[in-house]
């Protein structure tokens, strides 16, 4: 095994992430917070796309549901974050179960279109249900959770609330990613890959394909909901466009950019896309043009995404030692 593979990358990255507020400005913490949340969102989608082979065009629906759940609970009902956050995951999972029941009956393009239709329905409801969701205006001023206890910890007393929230986000996302990583490496995860590879064969080793697909759908929806719950607070407001199809396409692109063949690919994709966006937007207003061009280059040149390209590079440069 090459030396590089022995390095415990994951804990190092988490450590680095935790140190951002100490070394970076408020802006860096802001960007990092964005990246971390989207990394969770993209990884949740990858469970469906990369591991089970189900391409969803409507994953933002669960992101939006999670965001609205946490937002409504915390802003309107004063529910503490400790309950409001998991509630985001639970409610998103419930809707994923409901929608998923119908979606997994369909194949490929029809599956994708139905996920899109359901997502647009969620968006339409968020957009119009003024009483509950604030309608088109959304719900600005979602409160931060009570983080005063953080100020009493050593090292952390000098930081702002937004920094405290960022640290909390890092810990929560790291936990979620760890859970997802376990799932992916488990027998359940392996069954999902058999479905992706060859659903017919999977059936004949005893895999009830539809049931597993539904389970993956619900799990992916749950974690997307958790990401949404965090995002609503981070964004200081929840808005209907969280569930709009363009959000779904953004997260899908991140997943692809980073490479759906690997676990950390989508997170890398989230990092890359957000940083790129920040950079490009400061030079030109034509971000979609740039994004489109990047996509085209990716599609023709690097179908494995960044993760795939890095893997290839890694294999060439650091040949593993064999006896």
């Amino acid at each position, binding site marked *: 095994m090459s030396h590089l593979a022995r390095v415990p990358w994951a804990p190092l990255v988490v450590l680095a992430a935790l140190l951002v507020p100490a070394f970076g400005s408020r802006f860096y913490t802001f960007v990092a917070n964005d990246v971390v949340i989207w990394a969770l969102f993209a990884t949740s989608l990858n469970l469906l796309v990369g591991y089970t082979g189900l391409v969803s065009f409507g994953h933002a629906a669960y992101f939006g549901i999670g965001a609205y759940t946490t937002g409504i609970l915390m802003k309107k009902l004063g529910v503490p974050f400790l309950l409001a956050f998991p509630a985001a995951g639970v409610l998103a999972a419930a809707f994923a179960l409901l929608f998923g029941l119908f979606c997994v009956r369909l194949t490929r393009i029809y599956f994708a279109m139905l996920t899109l239709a359901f997502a647009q329905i969620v968006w339409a409801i968020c957009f119009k249900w003024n009483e509950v969701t604030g309608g088109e205006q959304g719900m600005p001023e979602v409160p931060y959770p009570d983080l005063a206890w953080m100020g009493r910890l050593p090292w952390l007393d000098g930081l702002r609330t937004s920094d405290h929230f960022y640290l909390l986000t890092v810990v929560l996302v790291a936990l979620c990613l760890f859970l997802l990583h376990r*799932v992916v*490496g488990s*027998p*359940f*995860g392996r*069954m999902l890959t058999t479905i992706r590879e*060859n659903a017919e064969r999977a*059936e004949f080793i*005893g895999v*009830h394909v539809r049931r597993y697909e539904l389970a993956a759908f619900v799990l992916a929806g749950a974690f997307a909901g958790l990401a949404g719950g965090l995002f609503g607070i981070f964004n200081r407001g929840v808005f209907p466009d969280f569930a709009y199809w363009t959000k779904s396409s953004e997260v899908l692109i991140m997943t692809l950019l980073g490479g759906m063949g690997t676990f950390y690919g989508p997170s890398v994709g989230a990092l890359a896309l957000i940083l790129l966006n920040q950079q490009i937007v400061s030079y030109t207003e034509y971000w979609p043009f740039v994004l489109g061009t990047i996509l085209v280059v990716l599609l023709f040149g690097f179908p494995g995404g960044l993760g795939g390209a890095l893997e290839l590079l890694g294999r060439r440069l650091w040949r593993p030692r064999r006896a």
Partner: protein
Amino acid sequence: MLEVRDLTKSFDGFVAVSRVSFDVAKGSVSAIIGPNGAGKTTLFNLITGHLRCDAGRVVLNGRDVTGVPPHDLCRMGVGRSFQRTNIFAKLTVYDNVQAAFLSHRGRGWNAFTPVRDLYREETLRLLESLGLADRAGEVAGFLSHGAQKQLELGLALALEPDILLLDEPTAGMSASETRETIQLIDRLARERGLTLLFTEHDMEVVFSIARKITVLHQGRVIADGSPADVRADAEVRRVYLGERR
């Protein structure tokens, strides 16, 4: 062990399988033969639940299993290999077989234990009996055609079946590969006490190991009996006139 009664299936008016009936005795080696398009694969698909039949019954060990979906049927002791090699192409050989064990031994819904060390012994043992142990780490899609078919066999065997349905197990193989595969299948069947039902084009193979042959033509059974009977059957000779193998 396996009884098939009056199985019928049509596609948009084209009758693929028509009132097919035959029996498979426990421990026997039976073959289904017939020219291309006779409906052999469709028949297999009907028995294994991949397709819904329009009429007829399939009885396994006295239990009616007509239309039972594949994922349930394979837990009842039915194993199957496919005509077009059907493996998990991007997984390694080891992972392919391990997946079958994971599913069959009921661990499929375990979402927390890392997969690495589960069923290691069983997987390696099976790979050895197939002759694929030295290639365990290779990606399945890159194996030779013959090796892939052996892997397919392995996937079916991992489910500890009582009866094995093999759809053209030697399709596309050279003469030597065919002999090897047949020897392998024969040995494994005897070692594990399996009942075999297979379809084949290669007459040499069929007549060498099958004890009972059912002949299909245009979806109907035209002969059913021992190899000697079938060889002598007039209709069979007519249908196969001009086909030499």
